[in-house]
Protein backbone atom coordinates (compact mmCIF):
# COMPACT_ATOMS: atom_id res chain seq x y z
CA UNK A 1 0.00 0.00 0.00
CA UNK A 2 1.37 3.39 -1.05
CA UNK A 3 0.15 6.40 0.88
CA UNK A 4 0.70 9.95 -0.28
CA UNK A 5 0.37 12.38 2.61
CA UNK A 6 0.23 16.16 2.13
CA UNK A 7 2.67 16.04 -0.79
CA UNK A 8 3.55 19.32 -2.49
CA UNK A 9 6.30 20.08 -4.94
CA UNK A 10 7.60 23.50 -5.89
CA UNK A 11 10.19 24.41 -8.49
CA UNK A 12 11.65 27.88 -8.00
CA UNK A 13 8.33 29.40 -6.95
CA UNK A 14 6.19 27.36 -9.37
CA UNK A 15 3.85 24.90 -7.67
CA UNK A 16 3.73 21.65 -9.63
CA UNK A 17 1.78 19.73 -6.98
CA UNK A 18 -0.22 21.11 -4.07
CA UNK A 19 -1.18 19.10 -1.01
CA UNK A 20 -1.86 15.70 -2.56
CA UNK A 21 -3.39 13.05 -0.29
CA UNK A 22 -4.32 9.65 -1.63
CA UNK A 23 -3.62 5.92 -1.44
CA UNK A 24 -2.68 3.27 -3.97
CA UNK A 25 -3.46 -0.34 -3.15
CA UNK A 26 -3.06 -3.31 -5.51
CA UNK A 27 -4.47 -2.81 -8.99
CA UNK A 28 -4.10 -0.65 -12.07
CA UNK A 29 -4.47 3.10 -11.59
CA UNK A 30 -5.00 5.18 -14.72
CA UNK A 31 -3.65 8.68 -14.20
CA UNK A 32 -5.44 11.05 -16.54
CA UNK A 33 -5.05 14.79 -16.81
CA UNK A 34 -4.13 17.40 -19.39
CA UNK A 35 -0.52 18.48 -19.90
CA UNK A 36 1.07 20.43 -17.10
CA UNK A 37 -1.29 19.22 -14.37
CA UNK A 38 1.52 17.54 -12.42
CA UNK A 39 1.23 13.88 -13.49
CA UNK A 40 4.90 13.48 -14.33
CA UNK A 41 6.01 15.25 -11.14
CA UNK A 42 3.80 12.94 -9.07
CA UNK A 43 5.21 9.86 -10.79
CA UNK A 44 8.79 11.12 -10.40
CA UNK A 45 8.16 11.50 -6.67
CA UNK A 46 6.79 7.95 -6.53
CA UNK A 47 9.91 6.74 -8.36
CA UNK A 48 12.19 8.72 -5.95
CA UNK A 49 13.63 10.82 -8.78
CA UNK A 50 12.33 13.87 -6.98
CA UNK A 51 11.71 14.44 -3.31
CA UNK A 52 8.60 16.37 -2.27
CA UNK A 53 9.00 19.92 -1.00
CA UNK A 54 6.58 19.05 1.79
CA UNK A 55 4.75 15.86 2.72
CA UNK A 56 5.75 12.21 2.61
CA UNK A 57 5.13 9.09 0.56
CA UNK A 58 4.82 5.91 2.61
CA UNK A 59 5.09 2.29 1.53
CA UNK A 60 3.30 0.09 4.04
CA UNK A 61 3.76 2.80 6.64
CA UNK A 62 7.46 3.50 6.02
CA UNK A 63 8.76 6.69 4.38
CA UNK A 64 10.05 5.65 0.93
CA UNK A 65 12.99 8.03 1.26
CA UNK A 66 14.07 6.25 4.42
CA UNK A 67 13.67 2.90 2.67
CA UNK A 68 16.04 3.95 -0.13
CA UNK A 69 17.43 0.88 -1.90
CA UNK A 70 14.79 -1.36 -0.32
CA UNK A 71 12.02 0.69 -1.95
CA UNK A 72 13.79 1.03 -5.29
CA UNK A 73 14.15 -2.75 -5.44
CA UNK A 74 10.35 -2.92 -5.47
CA UNK A 75 9.71 -0.49 -8.31
CA UNK A 76 9.92 -0.44 -12.08
CA UNK A 77 9.81 2.97 -13.73
CA UNK A 78 9.41 4.02 -17.29
CA UNK A 79 9.89 7.75 -17.79
CA UNK A 80 8.03 9.84 -20.34
CA UNK A 81 11.20 10.48 -22.31
CA UNK A 82 13.08 7.23 -22.28
CA UNK A 83 16.84 7.80 -22.25
CA UNK A 84 19.24 5.15 -23.52
CA UNK A 85 22.84 4.68 -24.61
CA UNK A 86 22.78 4.88 -28.38
CA UNK A 87 25.70 2.52 -28.91
CA UNK A 88 24.30 -0.24 -26.70
CA UNK A 89 22.33 -3.17 -28.09
CA UNK A 90 18.97 -3.87 -26.44
CA UNK A 91 20.47 -6.94 -24.78
CA UNK A 92 23.51 -5.06 -23.44
CA UNK A 93 21.34 -2.17 -22.23
CA UNK A 94 18.90 -4.42 -20.38
CA UNK A 95 21.74 -6.36 -18.77
CA UNK A 96 23.27 -3.07 -17.64
CA UNK A 97 19.99 -1.92 -16.06
CA UNK A 98 19.58 -5.38 -14.50
CA UNK A 99 22.95 -4.95 -12.76
CA UNK A 100 21.81 -1.59 -11.39
CA UNK A 101 18.63 -3.25 -10.18
CA UNK A 102 20.77 -5.69 -8.21
CA UNK A 103 19.85 -8.74 -10.30
CA UNK A 104 22.52 -11.45 -10.54
CA UNK A 105 24.18 -11.97 -13.93
CA UNK A 106 22.66 -15.35 -14.86
CA UNK A 107 19.19 -14.30 -13.75
CA UNK A 108 19.59 -11.03 -15.67
CA UNK A 109 20.43 -12.94 -18.85
CA UNK A 110 17.36 -15.17 -18.45
CA UNK A 111 14.98 -12.28 -17.75
CA UNK A 112 16.41 -10.16 -20.54
CA UNK A 113 15.84 -12.91 -23.11
CA UNK A 114 12.35 -13.65 -21.80
CA UNK A 115 11.27 -10.00 -21.90
CA UNK A 116 12.81 -9.35 -25.32
CA UNK A 117 10.98 -12.40 -26.62
CA UNK A 118 7.69 -11.30 -25.07
CA UNK A 119 8.00 -7.80 -26.49
CA UNK A 120 8.98 -9.01 -29.96
CA UNK A 121 12.58 -7.79 -29.88
CA UNK A 122 14.45 -11.06 -29.49
CA UNK A 123 15.48 -11.25 -33.16
CA UNK A 124 17.01 -7.76 -33.07
CA UNK A 125 18.47 -7.91 -29.56
CA UNK A 126 22.07 -7.54 -30.80
CA UNK A 127 21.41 -4.46 -32.92
CA UNK A 128 22.40 -1.06 -31.58
CA UNK A 129 19.60 0.98 -30.04
CA UNK A 130 20.33 3.90 -32.36
CA UNK A 131 19.04 1.78 -35.24
CA UNK A 132 15.69 1.09 -33.50
CA UNK A 133 12.40 2.77 -34.45
CA UNK A 134 10.46 4.84 -31.88
CA UNK A 135 8.08 1.96 -31.17
CA UNK A 136 10.93 -0.52 -30.68
CA UNK A 137 12.67 1.85 -28.27
CA UNK A 138 9.45 2.26 -26.34
CA UNK A 139 9.28 -1.50 -25.96
CA UNK A 140 12.87 -1.57 -24.65
CA UNK A 141 11.77 1.07 -22.12
CA UNK A 142 8.90 -1.13 -21.05
CA UNK A 143 11.23 -4.16 -20.80
CA UNK A 144 13.66 -2.35 -18.49
CA UNK A 145 10.80 -1.37 -16.17
CA UNK A 146 9.71 -5.02 -15.92
CA UNK A 147 13.19 -6.51 -15.41
CA UNK A 148 12.96 -6.89 -11.64
CA UNK A 149 9.34 -8.13 -11.72
CA UNK A 150 8.39 -5.01 -9.74
CA UNK A 151 5.73 -4.86 -7.10
CA UNK A 152 5.07 -1.22 -8.01
CA UNK A 153 5.14 -0.34 -11.70
CA UNK A 154 5.26 3.35 -12.59
CA UNK A 155 4.59 4.10 -16.25
CA UNK A 156 4.64 7.62 -17.63
CA UNK A 157 3.03 7.66 -21.09
CA UNK A 158 4.29 4.16 -21.91
CA UNK A 159 2.35 3.77 -25.15
CA UNK A 160 3.48 7.00 -26.80
CA UNK A 161 4.89 6.00 -30.19
CA UNK A 162 3.31 2.54 -30.23
CA UNK A 163 0.90 1.56 -33.01
CA UNK A 164 -2.61 0.32 -32.08
CA UNK A 165 -1.52 -3.35 -32.27
CA UNK A 166 1.41 -2.76 -29.97
CA UNK A 167 -0.76 -0.76 -27.57
CA UNK A 168 -3.26 -3.61 -27.38
CA UNK A 169 -0.42 -6.07 -26.76
CA UNK A 170 0.98 -3.84 -24.05
CA UNK A 171 -2.43 -3.66 -22.34
CA UNK A 172 -2.58 -7.46 -22.37
CA UNK A 173 0.84 -7.69 -20.75
CA UNK A 174 -0.21 -5.22 -18.06
CA UNK A 175 -3.37 -7.14 -17.26
CA UNK A 176 -1.32 -10.35 -16.95
CA UNK A 177 1.14 -8.62 -14.65
CA UNK A 178 -1.37 -6.79 -12.51
CA UNK A 179 -1.99 -9.64 -10.05
CA UNK A 180 -0.71 -8.53 -6.65
CA UNK A 181 0.91 -5.38 -8.02
CA UNK A 182 0.30 -1.66 -7.91
CA UNK A 183 0.47 -0.17 -11.40
CA UNK A 184 0.42 3.59 -11.92
CA UNK A 185 -0.24 4.26 -15.57
CA UNK A 186 -0.20 7.85 -16.79
CA UNK A 187 -1.57 8.51 -20.26
CA UNK A 188 -3.34 10.98 -22.51
CA UNK A 189 -5.09 8.19 -24.36
CA UNK A 190 -8.27 7.50 -22.40
CA UNK A 191 -9.00 4.25 -24.25
CA UNK A 192 -5.66 2.86 -23.03
CA UNK A 193 -6.91 2.69 -19.47
CA UNK A 194 -10.70 2.54 -19.87
CA UNK A 195 -10.89 -1.25 -19.99
CA UNK A 196 -8.01 -2.18 -17.72
CA UNK A 197 -7.84 0.42 -14.92
CA UNK A 198 -9.35 -0.43 -11.56
CA UNK A 199 -9.34 3.21 -10.56
CA UNK A 200 -8.81 6.57 -12.25
CA UNK A 201 -6.77 9.37 -10.75
CA UNK A 202 -7.33 12.88 -12.08
CA UNK A 203 -5.26 15.94 -11.27
CA UNK A 204 -6.68 19.41 -11.76
CA UNK A 205 -4.93 22.69 -11.02
CA UNK A 206 -2.02 20.73 -9.50
CA UNK A 207 -4.24 19.13 -6.87
CA UNK A 208 -5.94 15.73 -6.73
CA UNK A 209 -9.36 15.98 -8.35
CA UNK A 210 -10.47 12.39 -7.92
CA UNK A 211 -9.43 8.81 -7.17
CA UNK A 212 -12.40 6.62 -8.09
CA UNK A 213 -13.39 3.57 -10.10
CA UNK A 214 -14.17 3.94 -13.80
CA UNK A 215 -17.87 3.31 -13.13
CA UNK A 216 -18.01 5.85 -10.30
CA UNK A 217 -16.43 8.42 -12.57
CA UNK A 218 -18.76 7.67 -15.49
CA UNK A 219 -21.77 7.91 -13.18
CA UNK A 220 -20.65 11.32 -11.96
CA UNK A 221 -21.73 12.83 -15.27
CA UNK A 222 -25.11 11.49 -16.28
CA UNK A 223 -26.43 12.24 -19.74
CA UNK A 224 -30.15 11.53 -20.25
CA UNK A 225 -30.01 9.42 -17.13
CA UNK A 226 -27.18 7.28 -18.51
CA UNK A 227 -23.56 7.14 -17.51
CA UNK A 228 -21.19 8.83 -19.98
CA UNK A 229 -18.06 7.24 -21.46
CA UNK A 230 -14.75 7.72 -19.68
CA UNK A 231 -13.60 10.03 -22.48
CA UNK A 232 -16.71 12.19 -22.06
CA UNK A 233 -16.17 12.27 -18.31
CA UNK A 234 -12.57 13.35 -18.90
CA UNK A 235 -13.63 16.16 -21.23
CA UNK A 236 -16.38 17.35 -18.90
CA UNK A 237 -13.99 17.39 -15.95
CA UNK A 238 -11.58 19.72 -17.68
CA UNK A 239 -14.08 21.87 -19.53
Amino acid at each position, binding site marked *: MLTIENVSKK*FKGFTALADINTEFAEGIYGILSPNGAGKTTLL*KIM*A*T*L*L*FPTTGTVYYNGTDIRQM*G*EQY*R*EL*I*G*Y*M*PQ*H*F*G*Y*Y*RDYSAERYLK*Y*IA*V*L*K*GIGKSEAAERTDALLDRLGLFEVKSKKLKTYSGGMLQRVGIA*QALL*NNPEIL*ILDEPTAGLDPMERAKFRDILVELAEGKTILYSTHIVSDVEDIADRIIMLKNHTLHCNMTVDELRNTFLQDGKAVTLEQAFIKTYQ
Partner: protein
Amino acid sequence: MKIAYPTQKEIDDSISRVIEEACPARENVFIFLYRLYREIGFLDVMHGMEKIMVPLIAAYAFGIVYLANNVTASASDLYLSVILFSPLVFQLLLCLFFLGEQEQGVYEIELSCKYTMYHLLILRMGIAGLFSVAVNGMALVLYGVSQDFFGGTLILRLAFLAVSTFLVYFTVYVHLILKSVRIQYQLSLYFTWCVVAVLIRLYIPGMFAYLAMELPLLIHVCIWGAMLGLLMRLLPDVIYRNGKYNLNIGE
Protein backbone atom coordinates in the same frame (compact mmCIF):
# COMPACT_ATOMS: atom_id res chain seq x y z
CA MET B 1 3.62 -25.44 32.96
CA LYS B 2 6.52 -23.74 34.63
CA ILE B 3 8.71 -21.67 32.34
CA ALA B 4 12.22 -21.18 33.61
CA TYR B 5 13.32 -17.59 34.01
CA PRO B 6 16.03 -16.88 31.39
CA THR B 7 19.62 -16.60 32.51
CA GLN B 8 21.39 -13.26 32.27
CA LYS B 9 23.33 -14.56 29.26
CA GLU B 10 20.09 -15.48 27.47
CA ILE B 11 18.66 -12.04 28.22
CA ASP B 12 21.80 -10.32 26.94
CA ASP B 13 21.87 -12.47 23.79
CA SER B 14 18.22 -11.70 23.07
CA ILE B 15 18.76 -7.98 23.51
CA SER B 16 21.82 -8.09 21.22
CA ARG B 17 19.85 -10.01 18.58
CA VAL B 18 16.98 -7.50 18.66
CA ILE B 19 19.40 -4.57 18.39
CA GLU B 20 21.29 -6.25 15.52
CA GLU B 21 18.05 -6.87 13.61
CA ALA B 22 16.53 -3.47 14.26
CA CYS B 23 19.63 -1.29 13.99
CA PRO B 24 22.12 -3.03 11.70
CA ALA B 25 25.63 -1.62 12.03
CA ARG B 26 26.35 0.81 9.25
CA GLU B 27 28.90 -0.62 6.85
CA ASN B 28 32.15 1.28 6.38
CA VAL B 29 31.67 3.37 3.24
CA PHE B 30 34.87 2.12 1.58
CA ILE B 31 33.96 -1.54 2.23
CA PHE B 32 30.46 -0.85 0.89
CA LEU B 33 31.93 0.75 -2.25
CA TYR B 34 34.30 -2.17 -2.83
CA ARG B 35 31.39 -4.62 -2.51
CA LEU B 36 29.35 -2.46 -4.89
CA TYR B 37 32.22 -2.35 -7.37
CA ARG B 38 32.47 -6.15 -7.30
CA GLU B 39 28.73 -6.41 -7.85
CA ILE B 40 28.46 -3.90 -10.71
CA GLY B 41 31.80 -4.60 -12.37
CA PHE B 42 34.38 -2.35 -14.01
CA LEU B 43 32.81 -2.30 -17.48
CA ASP B 44 29.40 -1.17 -16.26
CA VAL B 45 30.86 1.40 -13.89
CA MET B 46 32.99 2.95 -16.59
CA HIS B 47 30.72 2.45 -19.60
CA GLY B 48 31.23 5.14 -22.18
CA MET B 49 34.41 6.38 -20.49
CA GLU B 50 36.74 4.16 -22.52
CA LYS B 51 36.11 6.44 -25.49
CA ILE B 52 37.57 9.41 -23.66
CA MET B 53 40.35 7.62 -21.72
CA VAL B 54 42.27 6.60 -24.84
CA PRO B 55 42.33 10.14 -26.37
CA LEU B 56 43.25 11.54 -22.94
CA ILE B 57 46.26 9.25 -22.62
CA ALA B 58 47.24 10.06 -26.20
CA ALA B 59 46.96 13.82 -25.53
CA TYR B 60 49.08 13.47 -22.39
CA ALA B 61 51.74 11.41 -24.20
CA PHE B 62 51.88 13.93 -27.02
CA GLY B 63 52.05 16.85 -24.56
CA ILE B 64 54.87 15.24 -22.57
CA VAL B 65 56.95 14.44 -25.66
CA TYR B 66 56.45 18.01 -26.87
CA LEU B 67 57.34 19.56 -23.50
CA ALA B 68 60.35 17.30 -23.03
CA ASN B 69 61.78 18.41 -26.35
CA ASN B 70 60.84 22.07 -26.33
CA VAL B 71 60.43 23.39 -22.79
CA THR B 72 62.94 23.52 -20.02
CA ALA B 73 61.21 23.93 -16.70
CA SER B 74 62.58 24.50 -13.22
CA ALA B 75 61.92 22.08 -10.34
CA SER B 76 59.52 24.68 -8.94
CA ASP B 77 57.51 24.56 -12.20
CA LEU B 78 57.30 20.83 -11.77
CA TYR B 79 55.70 21.23 -8.34
CA LEU B 80 53.23 23.78 -9.68
CA SER B 81 52.28 21.49 -12.56
CA VAL B 82 51.61 18.66 -10.06
CA ILE B 83 49.15 20.92 -8.22
CA LEU B 84 47.49 22.05 -11.43
CA PHE B 85 47.28 18.71 -13.20
CA SER B 86 46.55 16.31 -10.33
CA PRO B 87 42.77 16.90 -10.44
CA LEU B 88 42.50 17.62 -14.19
CA VAL B 89 41.80 14.14 -15.55
CA PHE B 90 39.52 13.41 -12.57
CA GLN B 91 37.50 16.56 -13.19
CA LEU B 92 37.29 16.01 -16.95
CA LEU B 93 36.05 12.44 -16.57
CA LEU B 94 33.37 13.47 -14.07
CA CYS B 95 32.18 16.40 -16.18
CA LEU B 96 31.83 13.99 -19.11
CA PHE B 97 29.87 11.58 -16.90
CA PHE B 98 27.34 14.28 -15.95
CA LEU B 99 27.19 15.59 -19.50
CA GLY B 100 26.47 12.09 -20.84
CA GLU B 101 23.78 11.45 -18.23
CA GLN B 102 22.05 14.75 -18.96
CA GLU B 103 22.29 14.58 -22.74
CA GLN B 104 21.04 11.04 -23.02
CA GLY B 105 18.47 11.34 -20.24
CA VAL B 106 19.46 7.93 -18.86
CA TYR B 107 19.69 9.30 -15.33
CA GLU B 108 15.90 9.11 -14.95
CA ILE B 109 15.99 5.34 -15.20
CA GLU B 110 19.26 5.02 -13.28
CA LEU B 111 17.86 7.04 -10.38
CA SER B 112 14.95 4.63 -10.02
CA CYS B 113 17.17 1.52 -9.79
CA LYS B 114 18.46 -0.07 -6.61
CA TYR B 115 21.91 1.31 -7.40
CA THR B 116 21.48 4.83 -8.73
CA MET B 117 23.71 7.04 -10.83
CA TYR B 118 25.10 8.38 -7.53
CA HIS B 119 26.43 4.95 -6.61
CA LEU B 120 28.01 4.91 -10.06
CA LEU B 121 29.31 8.44 -9.53
CA ILE B 122 31.16 7.51 -6.34
CA LEU B 123 32.75 4.49 -7.99
CA ARG B 124 33.69 6.59 -10.98
CA MET B 125 35.22 9.22 -8.73
CA GLY B 126 37.45 6.54 -7.21
CA ILE B 127 38.49 5.06 -10.55
CA ALA B 128 38.90 8.50 -12.17
CA GLY B 129 41.04 9.54 -9.20
CA LEU B 130 43.35 6.52 -9.47
CA PHE B 131 43.54 6.98 -13.23
CA SER B 132 44.30 10.68 -12.79
CA VAL B 133 47.10 10.04 -10.30
CA ALA B 134 48.57 7.26 -12.50
CA VAL B 135 48.51 9.28 -15.71
CA ASN B 136 49.99 12.37 -14.07
CA GLY B 137 52.58 10.28 -12.26
CA MET B 138 53.74 8.70 -15.50
CA ALA B 139 53.79 12.07 -17.24
CA LEU B 140 55.92 13.56 -14.47
CA VAL B 141 58.37 10.68 -14.45
CA LEU B 142 58.76 10.84 -18.24
CA TYR B 143 59.26 14.59 -18.19
CA GLY B 144 61.56 14.46 -15.19
CA VAL B 145 63.74 11.78 -16.79
CA SER B 146 63.95 13.73 -20.03
CA GLN B 147 65.00 16.87 -18.14
CA ASP B 148 67.33 15.01 -15.81
CA PHE B 149 65.48 16.31 -12.74
CA PHE B 150 65.44 13.29 -10.55
CA GLY B 151 67.74 13.00 -7.69
CA GLY B 152 67.44 12.63 -3.93
CA THR B 153 63.88 12.53 -2.62
CA LEU B 154 62.35 14.70 -5.38
CA ILE B 155 60.28 11.91 -6.91
CA LEU B 156 58.95 10.79 -3.52
CA ARG B 157 58.04 14.36 -2.59
CA LEU B 158 56.31 14.88 -5.94
CA ALA B 159 54.31 11.69 -5.47
CA PHE B 160 53.23 12.71 -1.96
CA LEU B 161 52.27 16.18 -3.18
CA ALA B 162 50.26 14.70 -6.08
CA VAL B 163 48.25 12.45 -3.75
CA SER B 164 47.69 15.23 -1.17
CA THR B 165 46.52 17.79 -3.74
CA PHE B 166 44.28 15.23 -5.37
CA LEU B 167 42.65 14.23 -2.06
CA VAL B 168 42.12 17.88 -1.07
CA TYR B 169 40.53 18.57 -4.47
CA PHE B 170 38.41 15.41 -4.22
CA THR B 171 37.05 16.50 -0.83
CA VAL B 172 36.29 20.04 -2.01
CA TYR B 173 34.63 18.56 -5.12
CA VAL B 174 32.34 16.32 -3.03
CA HIS B 175 31.40 19.37 -0.92
CA LEU B 176 30.54 21.21 -4.12
CA ILE B 177 28.35 18.52 -5.64
CA LEU B 178 26.39 18.27 -2.41
CA LYS B 179 25.39 21.88 -3.11
CA SER B 180 24.94 21.59 -6.86
CA VAL B 181 25.90 19.15 -9.59
CA ARG B 182 25.93 21.77 -12.36
CA ILE B 183 28.82 21.27 -14.74
CA GLN B 184 29.52 25.03 -14.86
CA TYR B 185 30.18 25.00 -11.11
CA GLN B 186 32.46 21.98 -11.42
CA LEU B 187 34.54 23.66 -14.12
CA SER B 188 34.61 26.89 -12.08
CA LEU B 189 36.01 24.90 -9.15
CA TYR B 190 38.91 23.64 -11.27
CA PHE B 191 39.50 27.09 -12.73
CA THR B 192 39.57 28.66 -9.24
CA TRP B 193 41.93 25.92 -8.04
CA CYS B 194 44.39 26.73 -10.84
CA VAL B 195 44.16 30.50 -10.37
CA VAL B 196 44.77 30.26 -6.61
CA ALA B 197 47.78 27.96 -7.12
CA VAL B 198 49.34 30.25 -9.75
CA LEU B 199 48.71 33.38 -7.67
CA ILE B 200 50.35 31.84 -4.59
CA ARG B 201 53.31 30.77 -6.69
CA LEU B 202 53.68 34.28 -8.19
CA TYR B 203 52.91 36.50 -5.23
CA ILE B 204 53.74 34.46 -2.14
CA PRO B 205 56.67 32.36 -3.38
CA GLY B 206 57.89 31.65 0.15
CA MET B 207 54.60 30.06 1.12
CA PHE B 208 54.44 28.14 -2.15
CA ALA B 209 57.96 26.82 -1.66
CA TYR B 210 57.11 25.67 1.86
CA LEU B 211 53.76 24.08 1.06
CA ALA B 212 54.81 22.41 -2.16
CA MET B 213 58.48 21.69 -1.67
CA GLU B 214 59.28 21.58 2.02
CA LEU B 215 56.18 20.33 3.85
CA PRO B 216 57.25 17.30 5.91
CA LEU B 217 56.08 14.00 4.47
CA LEU B 218 54.44 13.20 7.79
CA ILE B 219 52.18 16.24 7.36
CA HIS B 220 51.23 14.88 3.94
CA VAL B 221 50.22 11.60 5.55
CA CYS B 222 48.14 13.54 8.09
CA ILE B 223 46.43 15.39 5.22
CA TRP B 224 45.58 12.05 3.57
CA GLY B 225 44.09 10.77 6.81
CA ALA B 226 42.05 13.94 7.37
CA MET B 227 40.73 13.98 3.80
CA LEU B 228 39.84 10.27 3.85
CA GLY B 229 38.04 10.82 7.15
CA LEU B 230 36.06 13.71 5.69
CA LEU B 231 35.24 11.65 2.59
CA MET B 232 33.95 8.82 4.76
CA ARG B 233 31.48 11.28 6.24
CA LEU B 234 30.55 12.98 2.97
CA LEU B 235 30.24 10.09 0.51
CA PRO B 236 27.14 8.54 2.14
CA ASP B 237 25.43 11.92 1.73
CA VAL B 238 26.10 11.72 -2.00
CA ILE B 239 24.80 8.15 -2.22
CA TYR B 240 21.66 8.94 -0.23
CA ARG B 241 21.19 12.30 -1.99
CA ASN B 242 21.22 14.31 1.20
CA GLY B 243 22.56 17.41 -0.53
CA LYS B 244 21.03 20.84 -0.36
CA TYR B 245 19.27 20.29 -3.68
CA ASN B 246 18.82 16.55 -3.21
CA LEU B 247 21.34 16.07 -6.02
CA ASN B 248 18.58 16.03 -8.60
CA ILE B 249 20.27 16.71 -11.88
CA GLY B 250 16.94 17.10 -13.61
CA GLU B 251 15.58 19.66 -11.16
